[in-house]
């Protein structure tokens, strides 16, 4: 059984809307663009075709797909081998909670307009497909501080710019 298992970690995470618009994608295993596109398209079809009462897991290709729908957004993760589906489901939920905390009752539009923030949060939470920090507090703290740093950066920018131009 051990020999069978290969990549244990998350392969990728996708966020897409009910209309099949991709909102966020994160690949933890380097994949070529073409392959990515194909997989995203196929997976979206499969997931969107499922009925609301069906269970959150499905086997697709050689992967296990864990998805959950929050309002109009589907959060969808692909894991491999022996990895645990429920943990993944829990991860998805954690991520949604984080988004919720950060944006303050998050909605799809938040993610569209601040997609880079959504990525940053995801990056703080998961790294290379593995949980980085399970504590919501510490993730949010890291993000807030990074944002703070960014704001500090932004204010003196114009002055520096002038200097740079001159």
């Amino acid at each position, binding site marked *: 059984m051990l020999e069978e298992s290969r990549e244990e970690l998350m392969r990728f995470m996708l966020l897409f809307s009910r209309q099949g618009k991709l909102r966020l994608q994160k690949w933890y295993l380097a994949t070529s663009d073409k392959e990515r596109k194909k997989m995203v398209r196929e997976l979206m079809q499969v997931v969107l075709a499922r009925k609301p009462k*069906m269970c959150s897991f499905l086997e697709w290709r050689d992967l296990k797909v864990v998805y959950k729908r929050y309002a109009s957004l589907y959060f969808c993760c692909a894991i491999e081998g022996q990895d645990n589906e429920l943990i993944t489901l829990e991860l998805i939920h954690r991520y949604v909670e984080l988004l919720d905390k950060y944006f303050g009752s998050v909605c799809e539009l938040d993610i569209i307009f601040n997609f880079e923030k959504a990525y940053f949060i995801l990056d703080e939470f998961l790294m290379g497909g593995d949980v980085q920090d399970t504590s919501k507090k510490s993730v949010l703290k890291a993000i807030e501080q990074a944002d703070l740093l960014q704001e500090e950066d932004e204010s003196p920018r114009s002055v520096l710019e002038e200097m740079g131009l001159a």
Partner: protein
Amino acid sequence: AKYISQCIDEIKQELKQDNIAVKANAVCKLTYLQMLGYDISWAAFNIIEVMSASKFTFKRIGYLAASQSFHEGTDVIMLTTNQIRKDLSSPSQYDTGVALTGLSCFVTPDLARDLANDIMTLMSHTKPYIRKKAVLIMYKVFLKYPESLRPAFPRLKEKLEDPDPGVQSAAVNVICELARRNPKNYLSLAPLFFKLMTSSTNNWVLIKIIKLFGALTPLEPRLGKKLIEPLTNLIHSVVLTTVLPGLSVAVLISLSSGMPNHSASIQVLTWLWRLSAVKYLGLLAMSKILKTHPKSVQSHKDLILQCLDDKDESIRLRALDLLYGMVSKKNLMEIVKKLMTHVDKAEGTTYRDELLTKIIDICSQSNYQYITNFEWYISILVELTRLEGTRHGHLIAAQMLDVAIRVKAIRKFAVSQMSALLDSAHLLASSTQRNGICEVLYAAAWICGEFSEHLQEPHHTLEAMLRPKVTTLPGHIQAVYVQNVVKLYANILQQKEQAGEAEGAQAVTQLMVDRLPQFVQSADLEVQERASCILQLVKHIQKLQAKDVPVAEEVSALFAGELNPVAPKAQKKVPVPEGLDLDAWINEPLSDSESEDERPRAVFHEEEQRRPKHRPSEADEEELARRREARKQEQANNPFYIKSSPSPQKRYQDTPGVEHIPVVQIDLSVPLKVPGLPMSDQYVRLEEERRHRQKLEKDKRRKKRKEKEKKGKRRHSSLPTESDEDIAPAQQVDIVTEEMPENALPSDEDDKDPNDPYRALDIDLDKPLADSEKLPVQKHRNAETSKSPEKDVPVVEKKSKKPKKKEKKHKEKERDKEKKREKEKKKSPKHKKKKHKKEKEERTKGKKKSKKQPLGSEEAAGEPVQNGAAEEEPLPVRGTSAPPPRTCDIRGSLQEDSQVTVAIVLENRSSSILKGMELSVLDSLNARMARPQGSSVHDGVPVPFQLPPGVSNEAQYVFTIQSIVMAQKLKGTLSFIAKNDEGATHEKLDFRLHFSCSSYLTTTPCYSDAFAKLLESGDLSMSSVKVDGIRMSFQNLLAKICFHHHFSVVERVDSCASMYSRSIQGHHICLLVKKGENSVSVDGKCSDSTLLSNLLEEMKATLAKC
């Protein structure tokens, strides 16, 4: 799409701007477009630019874009190495963090190799935020660059006891993942993990640890025992405290792989069952446990059967899978019965078909191992034929045939059932659909024909088979009908003749003659052929019968003998006899070769394939004898070979043939004749009775200890309890071992996949570190950075100065040759060469000193990867740049290309041999290294020689420069293999190439009148410098300027001189040098003001040293 392409154009415009903020915004937009599926690989370079922005805001966006769009095929990725390294050592933890996060997404083997050491250093960073990330990314690095595992492992182990829980859990994660690849190397960590498990309160960490133990326990059984107690405690507490039922199931699943005792886990599992959310997982867990502990799951059969009623199809299918695994002799009938009711209830053909195949799978698995009563199975199959619209008619048919052939005892029953099937009309109704249920008739007809001796009312069946409606069936079924009608006919004929009913026999023949023409008219060729052939045969028989000749004997001789099942692989397994070339033609190829009949159709012995007899005439006696022997063997083992055929086989009867397989007597306690189509339920009841009886009998036997040779099998042990093994099957399955020839070759075992990326991680971590396994360390750089980042600045300056110096020296040398030809006034080259050498030595010495210091400090800091080898670190000779060496007959048109040749002198100061040197230079926008065709930007350019100790050599490289108005520096790395007695190490040296403006100038002679014209033209801009404190003579001063800055003197009047030079891109530079008292002033005029001011700056620096 139009809008998008417009946007992309806009973005391209934005990227061209200098403003980094605009660029970052553009990259951000690109990232979004990438998500929408647009290709942004063309912007990779811009992304790197944004990544290298100094401000966090932009850096963050740059890294995000990189992590989204880069993959291993991205060729610019190599350019990021130094940038990432810089960010990793940045004082801001967020810079480092963002770099680590980005890296985790696009780490390549090269990046992993180059950065492994930097990341390792970060693992002991003061901030837990960084430590955590560094630890996690190590896993990715290990995957890409497995050599780093051993050196990094001790530190990883330390991190397990990190005070910060985040770091701790990261370390647990990484080790857990590693251990699952290759658990045995991590056994030594078990006590540590045990401690963690009992002390940790973080559920996430706990799960990982338990997963890890799941991997470890199979290797160390003692561990399992030790774990039971804490684990069961854990299970209970987790179940009670956590709101996440998922976690506990996660624990259970990981448990199942290694735990010896499942009672507790099963208990919890069933408790969890009530929560519908985890039903699917529960089933999954069950199926895992099933593999190791089938019995404990079997008791939950009812629960699983309930799942079949679930709404979600995937749950139902899971449950079916589970059922497949948990059937036993005891519960098979019950389970199948349950499934049958589901078949009736199920809506939707796909699910019903799935059920049907599962039923057949379950029953037929491992050669009908669990079937105790084949009559029951046949009746199940017959019941399944009532399903409408199934696609698996063929499957059922195959099962029927298989069972009828293999289980001799069941034939009589099977025949009676099949004749009933043939009789019933409902199957014919659905005949339109190919592969539909009508396929069953194929099996039914064949069984009735082949085993016609068992038929109760053969005449009746014959009529059923000759019904006109049969012609609506698909062709291949009709063909079988025709064939088997004859068999049946032969049988009837024999019966009638034996009974002396000549009239009856004639009546049957008449029936045949009447009915067969309907098949002769069939559209199917096969049917037509067979039918017309048989029609003639029957007509012939009719004639004979008319003469009162007994024909039955001869007719039935047509179908004598038995057919045996042949395993699909049997033919493949027969080894090719020596000397037999299967590819060679035996005869000249015929245009239309006969196709061989497939087994189910090979009803006639006459049609069976004969082994091609191929006997080369030149073979000698001995060879012939040997072959005969071999053939004998094969024939005995080849079920296709006709055993009952006369003479030749007789001699070999001592070899075990199919006939010798012991076929156990039928248990006559079951009434074989069940009228009509019986319900399978009856059999369940009967079976119970039979078992009961068997048990009673057994008891009796035990008491009396007397053999009762009457019925059934007596092979069972005398254990009174009724276990699985005790239930003797009512019929024996004739699993013919000869299905496979005896000398069959064992099938090739699947080799372990050599491409398995994780195999590389199979590294023994307990071995001590060997010197050669050190990570490639950029030693001096490391030392610099580990002290403080500010220190970087002076060092860089030191470095950049040196090349300049050397550069000039070198150019001098080169120009000497030119100058000689051009007959210009110059110093003697001899003298210069000497000087040059001397200076070089001095310089390198000095450098050695400056380098040793940081090394020493690093050792003091206790870097584990450092050892004595550092002393041998080769010292590089810095690169020098020079204009392209002009060959003597050059016409002075240097504008053709903006190329600069850089000659690099490499001197080996170590005691090792340096091999495989490779120079990689980080191109800037402005300066590019000219590389051999086909190599990509991050490929190193090989140095075309090796360096034994103490030897120096020069390599030349060409650079293309876009703009020459500014001086610039290029960063590069020289990688090489240092080989000495202790082995070879792979090492690297960073260097910088300094392209000064002067190096773009070429000495060009100019006449004073032309010079005057240039100055008068007025399109030159002017600038001047003044340097004080010059003591040198004016003559020497001019020589120096000519020397270092490639000028030539146009005119000299007293302490005043005019000089001229020209750049490779054709800028004119005119100088007026005046010497005052202790000072020199230089006024310059040039067509490019930037170039001029930069040149004068450089000149000022040179003069200041005078």
